[in-house]
């Protein structure tokens, strides 16, 4: 009992705002063990790779959303950004562009959407929820208008190989996800960018009075989120071999659930990229378990909603406790 207590309080989980919740790690391990015994298919290589591939798209977008939520913001426009980026890349490939320019143009589009969100939120002080809800509708609507609602089939073999190719049995898209998380995990605790994300989320006024240009950094945070959403959209297009204006609809639910489940606080100032990674694994394992148990997809949606509620309630209880202290 004492050993378990020591383990839960250990510094290996980190300290303060960037600490990993040991309860989350334990829950993930417990779900893993339960599913391993409950289904003979769960621990198969094929199933685990499928979980990993399903997780990649949400995971890349969740990395950017983690930064936004730690900074006390919110971005609902990621699904629309993913669709728009995929559509743009697919269109450019369709008219004969190379993979590189199509990729860069799509990322640039994500950056522009992030910059627009950041400008409205930081400089015009519009509520992040309203701002990104509006951009969600605008971008998605424009994607439908410009494409006339039609999907674009991608035939470029190089592009498709990103979605289907492997290196040492690991799909490229999983490697890309790992790289994104490694970069973010290095940036967050070691750079001023990472430090200011926590400071702005914790107390934006204090950060401003400390000489930090909070508006500029907020812009950078939303731009990063736009870029990761665009990258996620590109991975989705590479994996499915097409781009649709209706792609990634409702992805926001998975992304935000994973981030909150991973310990990021909706009040800002707390969370980690590693926590989001664990939250993602837990969310997708539960999802996979429900699929293996042949639970209908509509019920899976209901289940995700409850998981998000539970994570938010936990966050409320935790921050309520720290307010009391």
């Amino acid at each position, binding site marked *: 009992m004492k050993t378990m207590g020591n383990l839960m309080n250990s510094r290996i989980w980190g300290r303060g705002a960037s600490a990993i919740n040991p309860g989350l790690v334990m829950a993930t391990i417990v779900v893993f063990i339960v599913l391993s015994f409950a289904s003979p298919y769960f621990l198969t290589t094929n199933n685990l790779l499928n979980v990993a591939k399903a997780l990649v798209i949400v995971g890349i977008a969740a990395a950017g959303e983690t930064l936004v939520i730690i900074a006390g913001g919110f971005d609902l426009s990621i699904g629309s950004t993913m669709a728009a980026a995929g559509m743009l890349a697919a269109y450019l490939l369709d008219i004969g562009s190379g993979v590189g320019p199509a990729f860069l143009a799509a990322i640039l589009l994500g950056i522009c959407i992030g910059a627009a969100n950041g400008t409205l939120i930081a400089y015009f002080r519009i509520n992040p929820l309203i701002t990104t809800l509006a951009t969600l509708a605008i971008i998605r609507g424009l994607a439908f208008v410009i494409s006339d609602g039609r999907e674009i089939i991608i035939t470029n073999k190089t592009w498709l190989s990103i979605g289907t190719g492997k290196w040492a049995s690991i799909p490229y898209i999983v490697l890309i996800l790992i790289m994104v998380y490694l970069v973010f995990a290095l940036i967050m605790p*070691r750079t001023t960018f990472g430090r200011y994300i926590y400071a702005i989320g914790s107390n934006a006024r204090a950060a401003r009075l400390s000489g930090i240009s909070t508006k500029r950094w907020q812009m950078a945070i939303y731009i990063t989120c736009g870029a990761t959403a665009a990258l996620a959209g590109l991975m989705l297009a590479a994996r499915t071999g097409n781009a649709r204006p209706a792609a990634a609809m409702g992805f926001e639910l998975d992304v935000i659930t994973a981030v909150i489940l991973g310990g990021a606080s909706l009040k800002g100032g707390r969370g980690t990229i590693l926590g989001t990674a664990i939250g993602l694994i837990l969310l997708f394992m539960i999802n996979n378990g429900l699929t293996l148990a042949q639970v209908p997809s509509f019920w899976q949606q209901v289940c995700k909603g409850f998981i998000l509620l539970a994570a938010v309630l936990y966050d409320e209880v935790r921050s309520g406790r720290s307010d009391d*202290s």
Partner: protein
Amino acid sequence: MMSTPSNSDTSNTGADSGARPPLIELAGITKTFGNVEALSGVDLKIGEAESVGIIGDNGAGKSTLVKVLSGVYPPTGGVMRFRGQEVRFDSPLDARKNGIEMIYQDLALCEDLDVAQNIFLGREIKKKLGPFNLLDKQAMARAAAEDIANMGLDFDVEREVGMLSGGERQMVAVARALQFSPSALLMDEPTAALSAEKIRRLWELIAELKSRGVSILLVSHRFTDILSICDRIVVVRGGRIAGEMKPHEHPPAQTMAMMTEMMTGDRITEETEI
């Protein structure tokens, strides 16, 4: 019958009138918010190593005055000089670059960050790693621990500020202001959350800072705070300097009566309840 303070002596010549210019000089400073004029032509000089207490009623303009000095509010009009050179502070960073540090009434700390992170927020120590400039967390933790120890305190600098007591948080705000060897320290109600023991320690620190040549500007509604540490008391009323005095020129009761009279604009008699 108590004597009436002389409003004719409001030239605020706290600084030496010799060749050396005052550390900070405000001339005709105004600050308006929409139609409201919070400061109306404030003239004030603060000398090197001088401690000046600002006192005034609620809404008198004393907090606006220190916020103009600390760069939070750029002035609407007037001239500000620092060591004789005209300056304009458009942000707290501008004031900090000139060695003016501020301890805010609400402390302005990030509760989710630890003590060391708060002390160095905005001025992090970095180390080169190839082409990257990374945070030097060890160096900042070491320096913060030293600051805390120098202040006669003992707490872990890796603790989140949100987990500290009100007094400890206040001392973190003081440590942050002192970390970068300021030439002037502005304090807005610094004793609000402190115990008697911590107030005594703060006054000792301020005396030590003064002996090192740091100028102090203290805003407080507590007469005792002002009388304890200030060389000069400036009274603000209706966005203007209503008068000033030396705290030990008169007996304490008379000083308080004079300050109250300048704050309210009402004549104080022996029958008046203060």
